[in-house]
C-alpha cells in the first residue's frame, strides 16, 4: 500500500494541476447525478455558457486522464525513489490499471444516464482507440514487440475495427444485433490480448532489443530516414542563410519553430476538413470556439517558455535591441501567415465539392471565417511576442512563468 501512495505522490508532484482530475470527477459525479441524471448537459445541445464550460471541463478531464496514465507508466521508472522498491513495475502497472478502470467506470457511470446505447458505444470505442494509439506511440521505441510485424498488423486491425465501432456499429446494431454482439466479443478479445501483451512486456522489462534484422530493421531504416530529414533541411537552410539578404530571419525561424519534415504539410487537408466540418455543423463550432482561449493560454505559456531561446538569439545576433524585436516579430508573423495560407484553397475546394453533391454554401462563408481566424491568430501572436520581447526584465518574466498555472502542468525534472 505504501508503494501505491508513493506512486500517487509522484504523480501529484510531477503534475499537480493534472491531479485535479480526481476532484473534477467527484464534482462531475455529484452534479450529474443530482441535477442531470440523463446526462443532457454533457451530451445534449450546447445552449448556454454554463453548458459550454461544463462540456469543456469534461473534455479536459478526459485528456488529463491519459496524460496521468502515460506519466505514471513512462516517467515513474526513471525516478530514483522507485529504484529500490521490489517489483515496482508490477506495482506501477497495477496502479495504472486501477486508475484506468476507475476512469472507465466513471465514464460509463456518467454516460450511462443517457440511456442512449449508441452514444455510449461510440464514446467507449473512441476512448479505447485513443488509449491504444497513445500507448503505442509512447512505447513504440522502447517495447520491442511493438516493432514486430505481427503486432503492427494487430494494431492496424484493432484500429480498423475501432473505426467500424465508432462510425458504423451504432447505425447497424438495431438491424443486426447478433452481428453487433459478435463484433463486441471479437473487439473485446483483441483488447484483452493487447492489455495482456503490454502488461507482460512492461513487467518483464522487454525493452529495446539489439536484433537489427528483418521487419524491425526496416522500421529502423524508415525512422532513421525521417530523423535525418530535418538535419538535411537544417544544413541546407544554414548554407542558404549565409547567402541570404535576410539571414537573421532564416536563422531565427530555425530556433523558434524548429525544422520539420515536409510530410507535415499532409496535415493541411485534414485540418481544413475539420474546420469545414465545423462550419457546416454550427453546433459543433461552439465548443470548438470555446477551446480557443485554452489554446491561446497554452500558446502564451509555450512562448514565454521560449525565453532561453530568445536570450540565445539576442546574445548571438548582431542586432540592436530594437532591430532584434522587429526581426523576431516579423519572423513569427510571417511564419504563421505562411502556415495558415495553404488552408484556404482546401476550404474552397471542400466548398465546391459540398455544393456539388449536397448542400448549398456561399463561398464567402469559409473565406470570411478563414480571414477572421487568421487575423485573430496573428493578433494574438503579435500581443504574446510583444509581451515576451518588450518586457523590461527577462528574468522577471521567467520568474512569473515559473509560478504560472500552465508551467505547473509541465513535467518537473
Amino acid at each position, binding site marked *: 500500500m505504501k508503494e501505491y501512495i508513493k506512486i500517487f505522490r509522484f504523480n501529484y508532484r510531477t503534475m499537480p494541476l493534472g491531479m485535479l482530475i480526481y476532484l473534477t470527477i467527484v464534482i462531475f459525479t455529484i452534479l450529474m447525478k443530482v441535477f442531470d441524471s440523463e446526462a443532457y448537459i454533457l451530451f445534449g445541445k450546447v445552449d448556454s455558457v454554463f453548458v459550454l464550460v461544463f462540456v469543456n471541463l469534461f473534455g479536459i478531464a478526459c485528456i488529463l486522464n491519459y496524460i496521468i496514465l502515460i506519466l505514471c507508466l513512462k516517467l515513474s521508472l526513471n525516478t530514483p525513489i522507485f529504484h529500490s522498491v521490489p517489483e515496482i513495475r508490477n506495482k506501477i502497472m497495477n496502479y495504472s490499471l486501477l486508475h484506468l478502470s476507475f476512469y472507465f467506470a466513471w465514464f460509463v457511470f456518467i454516460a450511462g444516464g443517457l440511456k442512449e446505447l449508441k452514444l455510449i458505444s461510440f464514446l467507449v470505442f473512441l476512448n479505447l482507440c485513443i488509449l491504444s494509439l497513445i500507448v503505442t506511440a509512447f512505447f513504440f521505441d522502447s517495447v520491442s514487440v511493438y516493432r514486430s510485424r505481427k503486432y503492427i498488423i494487430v494494431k492496424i486491425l484493432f484500429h480498423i475495427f475501432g473505426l467500424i465501432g465508432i462510425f458504423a456499429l451504432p447505425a447497424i446494431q438495431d438491424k443486426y444485433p447478433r452481428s453487433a454482439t459478435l463484433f463486441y466479443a471479437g473487439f473485446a478479445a483483441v483488447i484483452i490480448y493487447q492489455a495482456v501483451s503490454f502488461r507482460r512486456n512492461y513487467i518483464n522489462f522487454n525493452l529495446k532489443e539489439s536484433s537489427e534484422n528483418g521487419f524491425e530493421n526496416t522500421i529502423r531504416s524508415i525512422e532513421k530516414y525521417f530523423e535525418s530529414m*530535418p*538535419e538535411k533541411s*537544417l*544544413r541546407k537552410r*544554414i548554407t542558404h*542563410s*549565409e547567402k541570404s539578404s535576410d*539571414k*537573421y530571419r532564416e*536563422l531565427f525561424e*530555425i*530556433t523558434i519553430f*524548429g525544422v520539420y519534415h515536409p510530410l507535415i504539410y499532409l496535415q493541411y487537408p485534414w485540418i481544413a476538413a475539420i474546420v469545414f466540418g465545423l462550419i457546416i455543423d454550427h453546433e459543433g463550432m461552439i465548443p470548438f470556439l470555446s477551446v480557443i482561449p485554452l489554446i491561446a493560454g497554452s500558446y502564451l505559456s509555450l512562448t514565454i517558455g521560449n525565453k*532561453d*531561446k530568445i*536570450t*540565445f538569439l*539576442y*546574445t*548571438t*545576433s*548582431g*542586432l*540592436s*535591441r*530594437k*532591430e532584434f524585436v522587429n526581426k523576431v516579430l516579423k519572423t513569427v508573423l510571417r511564419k504563421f501567415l505562411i502556415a495558415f495560407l495553404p488552408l484556404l484553397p482546401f476550404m474552397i475546394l471542400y466548398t465546391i465539392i459540398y455544393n456539388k453533391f449536397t448542400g448549398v454554401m456561399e463561398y464567402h462563408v469559409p473565406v470570411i471565417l478563414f480571414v477572421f481566424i487568421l487575423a485573430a491568430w496573428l493578433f494574438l501572436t503579435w500581443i504574446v511576442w510583444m509581451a515576451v520581447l518588450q518586457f*523590461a*526584465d*527577462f*528574468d*522577471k518574466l521567467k*520568474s512569473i512563468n515559473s509560478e504560472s498555472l500552465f508551467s505547473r502542468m509541465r513535467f518537473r525534472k
Partner: protein
Amino acid sequence: MENNDVVIRLDKVSKSYRNKQVLKDIDLTIRKGTIMGLIGKNGAGKTTMIKALLGLLKLDSGKATVFGEDSWDLPGEVKHRIGYVPQKTDMFSGWMRVKDLLDYIGAFYNIWNKDKISKLVKEWSIDPDARFRDLSEGEKQKVAIVAAMGHDPELYIFDEPVASLDPIARRTFIKELIDLNLDSGSTMLFSTHITSDLERIAADVALLKDNEIKYKGSLSDLKEQYSEKMNLEDIFIELNK
C-alpha cells in the same frame, strides 16, 4: 570621457527582485586584456551582474557599459565582440547534432573560425555527431564554451563555465583561456565557485558579498593580506564569514 582601455564599466549598479536586493551600488571597471574572476556565494548576484552586462535584464539604477556602449541597448557589432557562456545550456536547440549546432551558431557571425572549432571539438573529445540533448551536462558545457570561441571575440563572459566539467577538461579549458589571453589579448570575466581555477588563471578578482563588492583588485594583493599558508578558498571562506 570613456577611456578606450575600459571594456566593462559598472557605475553604481543596483538591482532587486521582488524587494530582495541582489546588487547594491556596484562599481567595477575591467580593462582590456584583464582576466577578472568573479567570486561569491550562491545567490550573491554573479549571474545577475553578468546578465545586466549583456542587456538581459534592466537595472533599477546605475549604468553598465560594455565597450563604452550602454549594455541595455548594445549595438549589434558590439554584441559580436562578446563571447558568452551561460550557466545553463537550455538555450540551445537540443534536437540538433553538435556539428550542426556549431555551424548554425557560426552562421550568425561574419567571422567564424572553423579550424579553431574543429580543433577544440577534437581536443575536448566532443562527439560531433551526438545530439546536443543526449550529451551530459559537462559535455553540453564544453559545446557552449567552444561555441563562444568561434567568432574570436574580444571579450569573454563566462558564467560558471566549469561547474560541470571534470578536472581534465577544466585544466584544458583554463589552458585555452590563458593562450587566448596571451595570443590575442582578450578580456575575460569569469564567474566561478571553484577558487583553485581562479588561482591558475585570474590576475584580478572581485568578491561579491551581501549584494556588494567586498574586494576588487589583484589576486596577489589579496593573498598578501592573509597568511601565506592560506589559499584562495580559505580566503574566500574567511571573507564570507
